[in-house]
């Protein structure tokens, strides 16, 4: 069973680093590096998910959404994590009819999240 995000309506546009920093023991340098890795990695992961949806492959949708969910959950509990979870669940049940609008939503949420992460990153390890 996959982990259900706790706050599905959390908005990525209002993302703050507080929770992530708490989880990383206040290690701002590590948080900045993690954001950097995510910004580099997520486009490929999202593309994998898009390909899976386009190929109508439930198993691939499940796996790609699952990986993306794990990745996003490093930063935020709800919002895009919850959307990725919904896509994963659709892949698991094989019900892919509703995936395109969810994929669009995920795309928007990730753009908002990465904008916040870039802003956080630009302040650097010192927190500026």
């Amino acid at each position, binding site marked *: 069973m996959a982990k259900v995000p706790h706050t599905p309506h959390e908005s990525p546009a209002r993302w703050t680093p507080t929770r992530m920093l708490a989880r990383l*023991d206040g290690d701002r340098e*590590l948080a900045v*590096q993690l954001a950097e890795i995510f910004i580099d*990695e*997520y486009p490929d992961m999202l593309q994998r998910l898009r390909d899976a949806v386009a190929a109508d492959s439930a198993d691939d949708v*499940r*796996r790609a959404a699952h*990986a993306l969910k*794990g990745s996003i959950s490093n930063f935020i509990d709800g919002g895009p994590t919850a959307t990725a979870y919904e896509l994963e669940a659709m892949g698991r049940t094989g019900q892919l009819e509703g995936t395109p609008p969810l994929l669009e939503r995920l795309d928007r949420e990730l753009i908002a999240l990465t904008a916040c992460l870039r802003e956080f990153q630009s302040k650097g390890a010192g927190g500026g």
Partner: protein
Amino acid sequence: MAPAPRDAAAQVLEAFREALVREHIVTGAGLERALQHGRAAGLDLQDAIVSLGLIDEETAYRLLADAAHIPFADLKTVRPTALARHLVPPSLLHRHEVLPLSVDDKAVRYVTSKPCDLEADRALSMSTGRSTAAMLACRSELRAALADDSLEPSQSAAPRTNETERDAASTRHTVLIVDDDGTTRGLVRLLLERDGYRVLEAVNGRNAVDIAATEKLDLVVMDLLMPELDGYGAIVALRSHVRHTTTPIVVVTSEEGPAVEAQVLELGADDYILKPFEPTVLTSRIKAAFRRQRLAVSCGS
């Protein structure tokens, strides 16, 4: 420094012999006769003196447990999982019978399936070809080592590894991270490289098995849901590979639930951590896995 296992077993036996004389169960000549009888019959000393009618079985094992500094209750009434609860962190014990610490695979299988009574200890001794005294010495050593060195560091207050520890403890260890999520791979890499580990990466189970065939791995961090070959299959494949029967495998996944946890541990994983994890939890668990492996090797040598 803890004595070598053979010395520890000899010390247990010596203390046991002294107790037999001190408790007036045998004289010096009686002890010699029991030893000869034991050698002839292939019995450990405590079984030899019981067989000669010099002592009842419970008293014999009580004295032996005292000699090994182990509560008799551990031998007589406590199931192995309960004993294990003294030895390993509760987070690793889970809801089924797994004893990650033992002398070898055979012993692990035995201990996980049998009650730890006198018969079990005797059978464990026979199955591993080691004397009961040696088995008890091993338990005693594990207990002492773990009492000195808690395996449950505070998640928020875990001290950062200092440079000396990194150099001494980690640089020789190679860790393979298996995950199709690049962010998690990156995070784990950052954390482990900080601690001085050499890190390799695999993007799925098939990739991991290929790397494991050619690389010496000291520990594997394994995701579960991956394309091509998932983590379940990769654990089975690694465990069937002669080089990796005992390589610690720490599963890091967002697949949640006791059934998942039980399954991966049954397949041969050593630990299970849920994503998103706290970095100190991951690094502490990895250190604990190495520590348990060192103890197991030390006790099984």
